[in-house]
């Protein structure tokens, strides 16, 4: 049901039945290794290209989700997923091997929450019983496409971020066991004329602030409603910028309750500069870490605003600014929603 200008309320309470997360060796050394169901020792994952490795991780995330949810593949009506690689190749190939009716989504690193919001919306309208939604990224595949060859020695500025290697998947179902998806806010594309692809956090901060503000306005609630407000991959720069922007707009978010998946995933001594990023970042940290906290009862209500930077290598070469987007989804423990 439409609420306000750009939000949905899911009155039928679609819920997340199970999740699956896969990570690479660098993520295994990170701050939250327990968030992963499968961790790989090798970036290649026994494949002969980075793109195939990413496809493999996505397949594993889907299989793990189904296994943990004890649902057979044939029962799942739709797969909604996307990634960052040209034409979403890894996702399309993984969708081909899984043979589940497939909808491809692209919001760069906000793909995870776009997929989750769409899945919840379809489930809420009784358009399906089970929907898988997933997002994946691979550090080397992304570096290769967007930046330089993996082994190229270019010094990165302190504002740049480290693309997460991994995949995260969630199984959304009709009102069942597991945390409920209560509402979602679809973001507008924000373009502040920022052109530096090595400072995506700074560019995306405005999109996060806009969507979070829109969410509170549409839902007529204030930040105290949530135990935690989680952003996708703003990193240290973007988190600070967006928090200050929200304070300037009279949205008093407690700094301790405002966390970022890109900061949560890696340890401070890992060489990730401003933090983690990538489509898998928000998917893994939300599904593998924060959702588990909700299930354990440590958190009651969370708002996840995944952020995406919608530039391409072409637009950067042609000196175009970086358009950014953020989508927010509210997840609540059972019995906690109003």
């Amino acid at each position, binding site marked *: 049901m439409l609420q306000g200008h750009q939000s949905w309320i899911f009155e039928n309470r679609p819920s997340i039945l199970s999740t699956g997360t896969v990570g690479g060796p660098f993520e295994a050394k990170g701050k939250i290794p327990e968030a992963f169901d499968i961790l790989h020792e090798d970036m290649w994952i026994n494949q002969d290209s980075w793109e195939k490795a990413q496809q493999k991780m996505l397949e594993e995330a889907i299989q793990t989700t189904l296994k943990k949810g004890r649902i057979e593949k044939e029962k799942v009506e739709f797969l909604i997923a996307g990634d960052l690689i040209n034409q979403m190749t890894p996702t399309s190939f993984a969708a081909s091997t899984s043979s589940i009716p497939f909808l491809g989504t692209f919001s760069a690193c906000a793909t995870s929450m776009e997929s989750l919001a769409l899945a919840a919306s379809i489930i809420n309208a009784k358009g399906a019983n089970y929907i898988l939604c997933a997002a994946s990224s691979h550090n080397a595949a992304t570096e290769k496409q967007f930046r*330089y060859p993996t082994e190229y*020695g*270019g*010094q990165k500025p302190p504002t740049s971020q480290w693309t997460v290697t991994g995949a995260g998947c969630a199984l959304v179902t009709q009102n069942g066991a597991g945390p409920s998806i209560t509402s979602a806010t679809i973001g507008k594309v924000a373009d*502040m*004329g920022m052109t530096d692809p090595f400072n995506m956090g700074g560019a995306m901060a405005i999109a996060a602030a806009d969507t979070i503000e829109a969410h509170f306005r549409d839902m007529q609630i204030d930040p105290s409603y949530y135990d935690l407000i989680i952003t996708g991959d703003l990193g240290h*720069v973007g988190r600070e*910028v967006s928090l200050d922007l929200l304070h300037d707009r009279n949205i008093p978010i407690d700094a301790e309750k405002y966390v970022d998946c890109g900061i949560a995933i890696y340890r401070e001594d890992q060489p990730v500069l401003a933090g983690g990023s990538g489509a898998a970042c928000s998917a893994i940290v939300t599904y593998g870490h924060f959702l588990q906290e909700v299930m354990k009862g440590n958190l009651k209500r969370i708002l996840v605003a995944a952020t995406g930077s919608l530039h391409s290598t072409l637009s950067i070469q042609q000196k175009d600014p970086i358009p950014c987007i953020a989508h927010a989804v509210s997840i609540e423990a059972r019995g906690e929603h109003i």
Partner: protein
Amino acid sequence: MGDKKKQKLQPNQQQYQAFQQKREIKRPIFKNCIKAFLIGGLICLIGQLISTFYIYQFNFTEKTAGNPTVATLIFITMLLTGFGVYDRIAQFAGAGSAVPVTGFGNAVISSAIEYRSEGFILGVGSNMLKLAGPVIVYGVFSAFIVALIKTILTQWGGF
């Protein structure tokens, strides 16, 4: 960023960029310069040692020792790039490891490794010089211009 570009921005965009810039983590330029100076100097020192080695151990002169020295440095770079060490050195050294011939070698070698998955001809062959290509193009072009000026001056200028 040039002023011309800034003028095209809307006032709210300008305001946001200023807001953002205040919170941006700045590049430690002075520290980077020192690191680049030290590592760049170290690479040159190694080059000099190799060059001296060739002059005293083999029959090279100061003029002819250049080629084997460059080849040796590029060979070492190839190993360091292949084992995934060079990009880590570069994150520390910045221009110090990019400007010497090792940086050029790394740009070619890393591209060759990266595009191996797309085959030898269209993958490695056509992408190997993706990063280093511009250096060759503009190197040759500026050499041509300088040679042209020199020819004009010596042939017709009477110098």
